[in-house]
């Protein structure tokens, strides 16, 4: 009896492993590691990748949740190596901390493509390619848009601009603010007041309420993501002190809710970074390398950000 059970167990195990290896040999398995799927942004990136995978066919996509926690992301990547994925599509949570995990991937000869966020420049690891948005350029474009609107209003570039920055230390927060302030610095008559609202709507609303109290004149508000500008708009709307439609408001990310407000004339503009295109492009580069051995021409692919206003709403991906 004991032998029978033992034999059965071994038999089942053998069949499973043969089937498993067959499944693996047929398909390409690609691991996705994003900071957290609780942000609509990454959930959308994931969907774009899955759509592309379905279109290309024969690819299994494994996506694991890192809860925006660096050490969790590292262990996820280690698990992927053990599982034997063919390639990894990565959005690093942080520029530096994830590097040991990439070293391990290099050692296991598993190619890595990063999307959206880069790892630290000059790190001693191999990245097949990075596909991303130029956040600095996005910040510049937002600033230029506001300067233009202020000039329309006053005949010259002047006024008070509130900048709501993202989570301190996060790459996109740093880059967007850097681009924004690079342009604003060229106009001495524009006063920029900055405070962080952690990329969150709740904080955007709170911080804006405080600015409304402390600042008698507000001409424009730039939120380094749409969540924050949506919160700020609600605060402006509830204040009774400012007319939301009068204040120039600019967001970032082109969320559907933001696009709706642009259509209604409440929000003036948002910056579209085409995340779907980014993710799909990165995935395609990775698959092409794995299937055909094609190394991408450039190791850095930037998708140009675009200012979306009422006039070019149809150019937004709108796909969230």
């Amino acid at each position, binding site marked *: 009896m004991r032998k029978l059970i033992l034999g059965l167990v071994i038999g089942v195990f053998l069949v499973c492993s043969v089937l498993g290896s067959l499944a693996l040999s047929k398909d390409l398995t690609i691991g996705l590691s994003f900071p957290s799927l609780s942000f609509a942004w990454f959930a959308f990136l994931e969907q774009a990748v899955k759509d592309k995978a379905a279109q290309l066919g024969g690819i299994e996509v494994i996506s694991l949740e890192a809860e925006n926690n660096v050490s969790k992301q590292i262990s996820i990547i280690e698990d992927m190596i053990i599982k034997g994925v063919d390639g990894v599509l990565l959005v690093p949570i942080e520029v530096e901390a994830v590097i040991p995990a990439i070293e391990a991937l290099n050692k296991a000869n598993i190619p890595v493509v990063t999307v959206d966020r880069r790892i630290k420049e000059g790190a001693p690891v191999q990245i097949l390619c990075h596909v991303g948005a130029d956040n600095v350029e996005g910040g510049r474009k937002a600033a230029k848009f506001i300067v233009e609107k202020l000039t329309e209003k006053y005949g010259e570039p002047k006024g008070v601009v509130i900048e709501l920055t993202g989570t301190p230390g996060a790459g996109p927060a740093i880059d967007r603010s850097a681009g924004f302030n690079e342009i604003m610095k060229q106009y001495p008559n524009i006063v920029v007041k900055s405070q962080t609202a952690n990329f969150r709507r709740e904080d955007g609303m709170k911080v804006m309420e405080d600015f409304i*109290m402390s600042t008698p004149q507000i001409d424009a508000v730039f939120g380094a993501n749409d969540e924050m500008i949506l919160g700020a708009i609600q605060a402006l709307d509830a204040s009774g002190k400012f007319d939301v439609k009068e204040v120039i408001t600019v967001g970032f990310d082109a969320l559907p809710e933001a696009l709706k407000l642009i259509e209604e004339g409440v929000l003036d503009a948002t910056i579209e970074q085409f995340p779907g295109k980014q993710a799909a492009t990165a995935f395609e580069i990775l698959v092409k390398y794995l299937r055909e051995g094609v190394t991408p021409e450039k190791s850095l692919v930037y998708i140009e950000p675009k200012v979306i206003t009422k006039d070019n709403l149809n150019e937004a991906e709108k796909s969230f």
Partner: protein
Amino acid sequence: MPVLVEEKSTQIFQKFFVFWDRVGILLAFLVVFVMFGALTPVFFHPLNILNVIRQVSIIGVIAVGMTFVILLGGIDLSVGSIVAFTGIIAAGFQVKWGGSLFLSIVVPLLIGGGIGFLNGFISTKGKLHPFIVTLGMMSIFRGATLLVAQGKPISGMSPAFRFIGAGMVGPIPFPVILFLGCVVIAGIVLKRTVFGRYIYAIGGNEEAALLSGIMVERYKISAFTLLGFLSGLSGLILTSRLNSGELVAGQGYELDVIASVVIGGTSLMGGEGGVYGTLIGALLIGVVSNGLNLLGVQPYWQMIVKGIIVIFAVLLDRLKRRFRTA
């Protein structure tokens, strides 16, 4: 001779702590309040004062419930996740599942209470420390939030629902009325009812309470249930105010909530403190954040200042106990 001196200084400390017990936290609050007012006059503007109380009300409602749990010597880390989960359920009923105002208010409150009940039931019946049970629940309901929402925030509430978080009764924001209402009711319950007196009795000495026939477990479960219910209420206020069920809602709330209660003078050992202290504690945190924002201070400082206040408050509690027993 030295003995005498020591006794005298102990007496002075004892007197100080009796004094501090009564009005200390209020005094500290007033000092901070006047200081910010002097630095930026706009701070005293009635609109700003209302802003602060409204901003505080979301945390404050939960802190009222947390006061009960901490008085019993317990703790609950799952409140932030309950806020997110009940918020997304409310948003779901508003936007996706028929738009019934009644269901989008009642169901989240019941779910909040239900999760609280589970927290209490599992920790008492299973003889587990609530720290661990609620830590697990924190993860479960953060995940459940993502599951229900499928990774996307749900936005676009009806005007009637928006009244909960954004409505005004005369010049007073509705969340402020909810919050202060909770404080007053909880204050009466704690001081004037058998339920309240037993909570202090259990928190003060659980064994003695048990031996004198108090149904300790039942009171603990009730306190957790109340806290869950109030976290659900907070979820409703937040979702209504943001006009959106957010996936990251309530993240880190447990820290602000516990800080409010502790700064307010409720002892983490249980049995001592009260809900009016919690009101002041929550206001103190809110005022510091608002004042630093008005002054345009870098956000990093806000976190540092908050941490210092919390440690200071707990330290005072510890010193108070030492000198009382001395």
